[in-house]
């Protein structure tokens, strides 16, 4: 698509081009169609494309506008100081996540030069050979500044993606419903059982007591992992052996199943998943959600009274949560991988004030996130970015002890997802689902070739 960008203004192909194309097509396609996947058709000129789901766009939501502007400003700044130009291409997030566009582009060698990547997709892209090594463009000091935030983005000591944010999960609750039921801050649950009891107390026909994600997908797995980790369970142990079939895993599956079975957790998301509307309309009492909702509340329901508490742990378990967040990547098969990688490092991973401040700006002003770099977190805190009650809680209570979202590839994701869905929504036996998932993960791990799964 890159080399034809100039044609866009013309309403229709000229007759000659059309006929020539038709004539040449059979031969051309038959000969080279299938195997011409690798970027050969890409033109060398034109700006590098940065596909993302933030900007440029316009929105009635000031937060969304601020996020869009952050991207635009960043790219403008780069373009004014560098020879290789960059162009932002905005895709709506559902299209970016579930659409056909990104996969088709990559499969045919037309992938964007710079793009956003989630942990769940990391290995697939890495093993596919499209992630450029960013390490040569970064100071050692900067790598150290990111610290553990890079763990799931590193292979053999090399950095392949730079996180722009860290997004921990916690519980959000409706203060009004809480108070009306005679509960106070002292009643904030610290165990699963307590949380189920409160959820049961707060639920009505039109108000869900306790909401967990219900739609199958990477996101649901992400929200479920902490419940498993808290009991000491894991998908793969530190040596990379399959450890999925454990009491902790079963306990976590049982927890969600019980909550649904007793009607405390609804089988579908209230308000079709619009968290702010659901809280405002009184359709939910507690919802497991991420730090990003802080800025959504601020933008859309600044007066709404909500509270945040960290995920309760099971009896004898240890607190943890899952840390999500997206990162910048450079396409190793793009038109200019070196410049693309340089851009990623320049934008987020340099020791310059500019780079650090950009991250502070993203995590405390444009969005509400924990900054992945120690320096940025400090500066953000010094600037008052974490002074609000909710953000303070996230920074000081929820985030410490959290664990990065794992980078399991599709087969592993799918096995776990099926176990969660089967137990939670189809009422299948916890033991059999756990065993089945563990078996298919083991079978996959045995034949898997590629970067380390953990």
């Amino acid at each position, binding site marked *: *698509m890159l080399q*034809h*960008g100039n*044609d*866009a*203004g*013309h*309403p*229709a*192909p000229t007759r000659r*081009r*059309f006929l020539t*194309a*038709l004539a040449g*097509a059979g031969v*051309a*396609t038959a000969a*080279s*169609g*299938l195997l*011409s996947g690798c970027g050969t*058709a890409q033109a060398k000129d034109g700006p590098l*494309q940065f596909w993302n*789901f*933030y900007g440029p*766009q*316009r*929105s*009635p*939501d000031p937060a*969304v506008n601020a996020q869009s502007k952050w991207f635009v400003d960043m790219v403008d700044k780069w373009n004014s100081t560098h020879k290789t130009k960059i162009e932002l*291409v905005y895709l*709506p*997030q*559902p*299209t970016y996540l579930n*659409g*056909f*566009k990104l996969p*088709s582009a990559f*499969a*045919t060698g*037309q992938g964007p030069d710079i793009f956003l990547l989630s942990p769940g997709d990391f290995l697939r892209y890495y093993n596919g050979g499209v992630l450029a090594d960013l390490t040569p463009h970064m100071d050692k000091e900067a790598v150290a500044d990111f610290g553990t935030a890079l763990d799931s983005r590193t292979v053999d000591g090399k950095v392949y993606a730079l996180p722009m944010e860290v997004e921990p999960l916690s519980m959000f609750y409706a203060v009004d419903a809480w108070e009306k039921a005679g509960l106070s801050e002292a009643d904030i649950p610290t165990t699963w059982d307590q949380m189920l009891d409160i959820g049961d107390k707060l639920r009505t026909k039109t108000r869900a007591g306790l909401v967990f994600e219900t739609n199958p997908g990477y996101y649901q797995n992400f929200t479920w992992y902490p419940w498993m980790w808290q009991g000491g369970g894991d998908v793969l142990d530190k040596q990379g052996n399959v450890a999925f079939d454990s009491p902790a895993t079963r306990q976590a599956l049982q927890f969600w199943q019980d909550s649904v079975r007793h009607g405390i957790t609804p089988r579908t998301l209230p*308000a*079709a*998943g*619009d*968290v*702010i*509307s*659901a809280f*405002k*309309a009184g359709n939910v009492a507690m919802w497991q959600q991420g730090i*990003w*909702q802080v800025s*959504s509340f601020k933008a*859309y*329901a600044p007066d709404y009274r909500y509270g945040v508490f960290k995920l309760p742990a099971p009896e004898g378990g240890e607190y943890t949560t899952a840390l999500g967040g997206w990162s910048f990547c450079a396409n190793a098969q793009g038109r200019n991988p070196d410049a693309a990688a340089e851009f990623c490092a320049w934008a987020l991973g340099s020791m310059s004030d500019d780079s650090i401040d950009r991250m502070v700006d993203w995590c405390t002003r444009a969005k509400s996130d924990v900054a992945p770099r120690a320096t940025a977190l400090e500066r953000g805190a010094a600037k008052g970015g974490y002074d609000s009650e909710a953000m303070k809680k996230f920074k000081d209570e929820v985030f410490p002890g959290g664990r990065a979202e794992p980078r399991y590839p599709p087969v592993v994701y799918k096995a776990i997802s099926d176990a969660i869905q089967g137990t939670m929504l189809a009422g299948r036996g916890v033991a059999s689902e756990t065993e089945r998932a563990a078996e298919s993960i083991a079978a996959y791990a045995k034949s898997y070739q590629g970067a380390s799964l953990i």
Partner: protein
Amino acid sequence: MASEVNAVGGRRLFSGRVGLTALAAFAAVISILPVLWMVSAAFKTRSTVTDGNLIPTEFTIQNFVYVFTEVPFVRYLWNSFFISAVITIAALLFHSMAAYALARLRFPGREKIFMAIFSTLLVTAPVVLIPLFIVARELGLLDSYAGLIIPAIFNAFGIFLLRQFYLGLPKELEEAAVLDGCGHWRVYWNIVLPMSRPILSALAVFFFLANWNAFVWPQVATSDQSLTVVQLGIASFQTQYLSNWNYILAAATVAALPMLALFFTFQRQIVDSIKTSGMK
């Protein structure tokens, strides 16, 4: 079955008609209620859009204002209109030509060719999407109107339906014409095409609608914002953490209205001309 009902005496006829009218009205209401709900939701605010009420508690036209002022929705509508119109016209012409040959001309391998064309109906779109993308790229069709239009023209559905229709036309008409010395093109153009107006108008509605609602191919084949079609425009109202359902439904209402008008205008013509063609 009006005729069957008519057969019986006046009283029965009357009650039969009332019953049928009631049934038709009932079916229409079932069919239309969800859409009415959509239209009403388009006038709701974000916080009430999911409340399930048929009548908005907080009435607003802000969603429509937003749709038309904050994004180039008119441009999206125009793109979709232009693309759908061109596809429809080209498809009707090509398909009726092919169907005419398959139904009325004698040539070796006719049934085999028909079966081959027919079998393309069975090709599943998501499976061929990547190869189709490669073909479109090799032809230089990506990110252009041509890329949105040309691959969408060819579809065996129209050929099949038209062939069925042409098989039913009386032979005498064109035989007379051929004896008069008309070439096959003139028979097709002057006789067959005008006679197929009813089926063509039905197909025009179907083609236009299908392309107006096209989503997957435009998503894959274009990145240029100026080529955005209306369904992609609707989808773009979904942002990362919030779904602006009120805007989505307002935009969907705007997108559905012209199609409804199109159908309402054409449906009389479709059915009437089918009736009056009186070929049988």
